[in-house]
């Protein structure tokens, strides 16, 4: 029972981090129609920058916020490179892959190739149903829920959020209404960067961050986002939880060697389901 509880809680926490990355994917895709494969790099920078700021003596919470802000700026730079010109969507996707590779090179030069970690939320671990759970997971849960709630409010209740949705829904009509679609796209990259940065800062204490962790993070974030067709933040969160739990249960009850493989197999199933759903919707 304790092992099950531990896998469950760890899976939920990791799933929420994937969901943060997935929400970044969804946000950027909804506004710009660009699939940003550099999303994982935002998390890597979030974790590594927090580490450097902590080493500089800056308090933990401040370090994490500063790192998220810095990654938001990186998001803006990526956005400018990806969407500022009249670049076809397919080329934009390739550019994001190129930016992810560039990010890996920069991260390796700046932080080296040794996995990096730091202490999470201070205080003793706590026990739930016989399982010892790190306090950092509690922070992941609270911060993620606050962020998801804020995103839901932004898009569901605010005029500004509706204008962002309008850009994704019909960019031409949005322009006719006076919405600056390009500026909204850059804002989506900023928010996507911040979400990724926070995800990385939250994940690094429980899973050491490496310069090349962006590949697996991007794949799992994308997998979670694709559950909602890259457009539904709610389904992306559900997808993140499914992939986080799958990974943990496979790793715990079977072998850590297969966790990513099973998660990717699940991605293929989701893609096939999505393709079938889209075909059926097209036939209606």
């Amino acid at each position, binding site marked *: 029972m304790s092992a099950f509880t531990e896998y469950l809680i760890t899976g939920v926490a990791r799933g929420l981090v994937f969901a943060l990355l997935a929400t970044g994917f969804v946000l950027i895709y909804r506004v710009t129609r660009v699939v940003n494969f550099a999303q994982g790099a935002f998390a890597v920078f979030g974790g590594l920058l927090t580490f450097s700021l902590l080493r500089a003596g800056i308090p933990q919470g401040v370090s994490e916020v500063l790192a998220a802000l810095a990654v938001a700026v990186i998001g803006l730079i990526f956005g400018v490179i990806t969407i500022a010109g009249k670049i076809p969507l397919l080329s934009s996707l390739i550019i994001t892959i190129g930016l992810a590779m560039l990010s890996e090179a920069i991260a390796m030069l700046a932080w080296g190739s040794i996995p990096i970690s730091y202490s999470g939320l201070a205080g003793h671990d706590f026990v739930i149903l016989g399982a010892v759970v790190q306090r950092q997971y509690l922070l992941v849960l609270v911060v993620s829920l606050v962020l998801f709630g804020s995103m839901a409010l932004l898009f569901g209740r605010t*005029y500004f959020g*509706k*204008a962002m*949705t*309008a850009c994704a*829904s*019909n960019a*031409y*009509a*949005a*322009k*006719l*209404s*006076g*919405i600056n679609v390009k500026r909204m796209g850059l804002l989506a990259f900023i928010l996507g960067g911040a979400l990724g940065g926070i995800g990385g800062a939250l994940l690094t204490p429980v899973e050491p961050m490496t310069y090349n962790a962006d590949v697996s993070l991007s794949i799992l974030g994308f997998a979670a986002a694709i559950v909602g067709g890259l457009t539904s933040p709610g389904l992306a969160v559900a997808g993140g939880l499914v992939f986080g739990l799958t990974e943990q249960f496979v790793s715990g009850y079977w072998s850590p060697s297969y966790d990513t493989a099973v998660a990717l197999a699940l991605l293929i199933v989701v893609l096939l389901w999505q393709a079938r759903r889209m075909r059926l919707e097209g036939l209606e």
Partner: protein
Amino acid sequence: MKLPAVTDVPSREEVVPDGALLATYDLVVRYSSAVALDGVSMHVGRGEMVALIGPNGAGKSTLLNTLSGIRRPAAGRIVCRGKLAHVPEGRQLFPELTVEDNLRLGAYRGGSRDPDPIYELFPQLHGLRKRRAGGLSGGEQQMVSIGRALMANPDIMAVDELSQGLAPIVVSDIIRHLVALNEEKGIAVLLVEQNARLALGITSRAYVLENGRVSKEGRSEDLARDPAVHKAYLGGQVGQ
């Protein structure tokens, strides 16, 4: 202003009077190497209702997109002495958003975001205000599209292919509203229509656009009697 009868290839001085609410001067728009608009000069006066007719690919929608700033002209000049709102071809709503959200986004440039005046104009939209715009009928969508443009509190509305894909009875109803807006609120209308009979029937002046150029202009009733216009756009001989 005394309007000339139908004229061919008008000179710039004749077509762009100083008091125009909207005017273009020798407007040129290119798509790569293709010329979509080739020196278009036209104008719309305050409170005027003007039609723009022509075949597919003549440049009508390009002209509206250029007037509303979506497309940049390669040459020429646009003067607009008021606020222009564009009702685009195909309605172009935000399908995931509700009717009310669609309307409110029409006021993005500023002004009141209260959609009540639009519900007074189109009462049936009030009952649909919480519905997603993508699920409405074509006529209802066209009302939302016009309502969204009206939320910008415009002096002139550029309406592109209003009748496209709609049943005649729905078109009549929407046209009635458009004419009322023009007559009661003084909103000028530039109406782009494939249905030339409809466009010439409700406007006072019209331009014929062919191959990116204004080939004819004049009073709508005169153009409707012009043999060439009649044959090309009204489907037969004058008097049929």
